[in-house]
């Protein structure tokens, strides 16, 4: 820099400045202080405000301790129905997000080239005007379907309303396409409803639990983990299927370190045993299920010997697992999992888990999966249909008939990188780090550079910010209201409120305000008729006879739970047949497997090993990586490597190693975690590390990005989700690739080729449907769409993430 200036005595220099200008400057802004009262005792002035955490999506109840307008600490709310006072490390570290010096503080406009990271602070008016102009120009020139947006979290509902009013229908959610999409699709196809969030697992009364790749304890969902631990402590039998000796596996009665990619074969094998040994719930199946004959036919070949050869598990353990589950029926939790986008056969694997649940009679039963108990709540914003908003079909074809949450990311990416004139021209990123949550990061960078306009709303300057034309700073969860959560997925349902604990810092704003401001500039503000988000929430509460002020006192409302089926409760499922569909005619009509069939996944090329990825208990994706406390607890992500493989390549625990995938993308180095607790044909790397943005001083350059290595995927044909465990890596040390022995060289028999797949035909004509009239069959069938009027009055019409509770109609009486 030019240091040619001279230091001067400021007091003297001040005298030479133009008086009026100085007075103007010195009086700029409002007074900073007001008289207060001195405290007698430190701490007595502290107040506690009940609210909801957002360090992950579990949304535990918190108490924010505040004094003099400053947040002192966050504690778990002991009265909250979900977590009852418990809070994880991330929840406790929320103060570090609030006071993160790297936070986005003011609206920013890009002043350099995309990727340079040169910004200028601007006023909200300027930023909003620019975005409104960008949206208007794009719509006028190319149409609303040339806009794509990427929502995340509860408050995305407001932006979804805005986009609906603009007739912009193209969106893609990482929480669906790269996470729970296959699970929700599989359960909807089977039960007519997804398994809920929180998952409706009745750990309290379970006698047996099956986890397939679901590592509770690392994926810390506080109440879920507590219930799980209590069940195991009480003596519930635990079976964990995972190539890795996870925290959950370490508590298991039976750990099945399965060959990666063969989970469906194992589930078919378990069903085979249950049927062969007559350990399934005849009565439940007869009363509630459709297609048992076809299912029996489909699993006939999956005897323990076949299953063992495919899965590389001992046949006696497969039989033992089936017997543990069958003998405990219906008090068996078959956990549906959460991150389920693995191999591109994932809806079918989720179907297999759902069908296994049904065979055990564990749906709506004590100790199995309990039923949702919806609570009424007023609607969010207005009904866009009533407001005259019509849905416009996008030029992107809908390729996945059973996916009802936006578009697969790969379709949006292709439509952006297309050379056609009709393509995506504008991206709106809301709380979504597309470079670390979506596959094909290199292509994503190309897309971000190619777009006409990019804007984002976020809390931290994540890597995509480098490519944004306008950046809007969002208030954190500690500084804003959010639309209430309506949790039907609890045995005692509840509605809970997020409310500000401290005043929003800097010039950050809540999403309702931002959406309303944009809507007004674009002349579509009809659905934002409340002045503030608090007014909008108050209106929601007023429709159930209470108010925001009333709920704010405790932070939640209880409802009445009806978690189980009973003698006088006859379930009617929102499937085409009105029953649980073990055999799915709608899948058959779409040319897809009507009953899960095992299909082999691609095997590792020579010198490579399969990459598995998952969660760390200290972090939530990339979102917490800049948190100073959490980074201290988990500063990097060691790569789990089998000890025999490590010995073969002369790697010791703690040695630094890089990872390179088949496309030559290299990340790291990270330390090797050498352990017998992972199969030799896989490595494990926790997700979220490896960001490279020096605007994030804590996160920058820490660890290795698992996501960068996910340049390939297998598309799940039912949901469109991207199966990500189809990437293989090799280990690099001193710039040399290590000679990883093949699985066979380490004594693992190769998987037998499955050349002939069983062909399943419907064995009987469908029973008369008892389903609701608009879900009549495969030709015209659409999954229950969340935009539809909600007959139960759940207020879920605009909720991107909590849309699952209306899928079952329980008829009282008989």
């Amino acid at each position, binding site marked *: 820099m030019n240091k040619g200036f001279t230091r*001067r005595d400021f007091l003297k*220099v001040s005298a030479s400045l133009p008086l009026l*200008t100085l007075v103007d400057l010195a009086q700029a*802004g409002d007074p*900073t202080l007001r008289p*207060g009262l001195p405290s007698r005792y430190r701490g007595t002035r502290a107040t506690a405000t009940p609210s909801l955490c957002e360090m992950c999506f579990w949304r535990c109840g918190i108490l924010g301790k505040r*004094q003099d*307008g400053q947040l002192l600490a966050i504690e778990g709310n002991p009265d909250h129905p979900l977590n009852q006072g418990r809070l994880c490390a991330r929840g406790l570290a929320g103060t570090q997000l609030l006071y993160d010096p790297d936070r986005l503080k003011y609206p920013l406009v890009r002043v350099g080239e995309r990727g340079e990271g040169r910004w200028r602070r601007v006023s909200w008016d300027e930023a909003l005007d620019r975005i409104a102009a960008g949206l208007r120009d794009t719509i006028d020139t190319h149409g609303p379907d040339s806009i794509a947006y990427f929502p995340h979290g509860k408050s995305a509902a407001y932006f979804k309303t805005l986009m609906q009013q603009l007739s912009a229908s193209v969106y893609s959610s990482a929480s669906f396409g790269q996470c729970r999409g296959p699970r929700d699709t599989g359960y909807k196809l089977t039960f007519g409803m997804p398994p809920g969030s929180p998952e409706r697992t009745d750990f309290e009364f379970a006698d047996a639990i099956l986890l397939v790749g679901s590592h509770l304890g690392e994926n810390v969902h506080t109440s879920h983990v507590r219930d799980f631990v209590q069940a195991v402590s009480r003596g519930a039998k635990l079976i964990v299927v995972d190539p890795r000796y996870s925290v959950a596996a370490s508590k298991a009665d039976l750990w099945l370190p399965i060959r990666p990619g063969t989970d469906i074969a194992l589930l078919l094998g378990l069903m085979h045993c249950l049927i062969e040994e007559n350990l399934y719930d005849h009565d439940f199946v007869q009363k509630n299920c459709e297609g048992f004959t076809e299912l029996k036919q489909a699993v006939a070949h999956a005897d323990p010997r076949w299953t063992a050869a495919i899965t590389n598990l001992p046949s006696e353990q497969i039989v033992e697992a089936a017997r543990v589950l069958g003998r405990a029926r219906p008090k068996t939790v078959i956990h549906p999992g959460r991150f389920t986008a693995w191999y591109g056969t994932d809806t079918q694997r989720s179907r297999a888990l759902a069908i296994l649940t049904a065979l055990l009679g564990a749906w709506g039963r004590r100790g199995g999966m309990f039923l949702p108990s919806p609570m009424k709540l007023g609607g969010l914003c207005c009904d866009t249909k009533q407001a005259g908003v019509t849905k416009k079909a996008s030029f992107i074809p809908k390729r996945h008939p059973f996916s009802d949450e936006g578009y697969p990311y790969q379709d949006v990416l292709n439509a952006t990188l297309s050379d056609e004139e009709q393509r995506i021209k504008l991206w709106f990123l809301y709380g979504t780090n597309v470079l670390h949550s979506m596959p094909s990061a290199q292509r994503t960078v190309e897309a971000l550079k190619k777009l006409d306009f990019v804007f984002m709303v976020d809390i931290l300057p994540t890597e995509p910010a480098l490519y944004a034309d306008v950046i809007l700073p969002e208030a954190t969860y500690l500084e804003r209201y959010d639309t209430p959560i309506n949790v039907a997925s609890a045995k005692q349902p509840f509605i809970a409120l997020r409310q500000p604990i401290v005043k929003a810092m800097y010039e950050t704003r809540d999403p309702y305000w931002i959406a309303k401001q944009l809507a007004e500039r674009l002349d579509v503000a009809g659905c934002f008729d409340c002045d503030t988000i608090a007014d909008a929430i108050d209106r929601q509460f007023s429709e159930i006879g209470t108010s925001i002020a009333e709920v704010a006192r405790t932070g939640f409302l209880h409802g009445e739970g009806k978690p189980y089926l009973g003698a006088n409760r006859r379930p009617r499922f929102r499937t085409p047949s009105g029953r649980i569909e073990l055999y799915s005619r709608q899948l058959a009509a779409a040319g897809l497997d009507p009953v899960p069939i095992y299909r082999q996944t691609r095997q590792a090329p020579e010198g490579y090993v399969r990459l598995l990825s998952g969660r760390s208990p200290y972090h939530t994706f990339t979102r917490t990586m800049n948190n*100073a406390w959490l980074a201290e607890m988990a500063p990097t992500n060691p790569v789990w490597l089998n000890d025999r493989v490590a010995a073969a390549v002369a790697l010791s625990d703690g040695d630094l190693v890089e990872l390179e995938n088949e496309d030559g993308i290299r990340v790291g180095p990270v330390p090797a975690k050498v352990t017998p607790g992972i199969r030799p044909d896989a490595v494990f790397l926790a997700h979220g590390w490896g960001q490279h943005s020096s605007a994030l001083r804590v996160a920058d350059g820490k660890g290795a990005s698992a996501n960068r290595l996910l340049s390939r995927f297998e598309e799940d044909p039912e949901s469109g989700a991207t199966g990500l465990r189809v990437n293989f890596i090799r280990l690099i040390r001193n710039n040399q690739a290590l000679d990883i022995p093949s699985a066979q060289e380490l004594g693992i028999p190769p998987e037998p080729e499955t050349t002939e797949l069983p062909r399943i035909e419907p064995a009987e004509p469908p029973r008369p449907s008892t389903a609701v009239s608009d879900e009549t069959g495969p030709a015209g069938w659409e999954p229950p769409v969340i935009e539809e009027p909600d007959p139960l009055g759940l207020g879920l019409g605009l909720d991107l993430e909590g849309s699952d509770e209306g899928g079952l109609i329980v008829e009282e009486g008989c």
Partner: protein
Amino acid sequence: MLLETPQDSYRLLAALLARPTPTMVRLMRSDAELPGNGSWSSEYAGDDLLLEALSEEHTRLFVNGFPQLSASPFAATYLDPDRPEQAISRIAERLHAMSLAPTGESLSQRLDHVQSLLAFAAELDPSDRRAFVEEFLASWLPRYKDKLEEAANLPLYPGLLGAAEDLIAATVSGADQ
């Protein structure tokens, strides 16, 4: 003269460290001997260009830095890096003990931002100011100023920080009275 009082000097410094405005550009174009100003600013032909350059520099140094916000403008970074909320709370507690409470825009800033601290210092009685400045500004500002000099592309903000350092030294020694 108004600005001969330490109160107005602190106020003025706080204002000069705020987001650049056309008034700031007018000041720089005037004859005023503003610390850090100099011939470099005349290289920007138009006021708009100078304002944009100042805005980018200010954003990079005091708002969101890229490629680096290596000169953190927050006191807690230097005083209590592991528990920033404790440092912030101590500032609030001290103000409260002096019968003052943050309000208005100050609550929207981190209380330990250099600009906030200078603004608070302006509002205190001389004896309170001395203790406050000693604890919450003098203890870290020289280190911060050195980092800022390294990070800055334009001379303005190092110049203003140099002036702040002098003012703080005068307050701590009692020379500003």
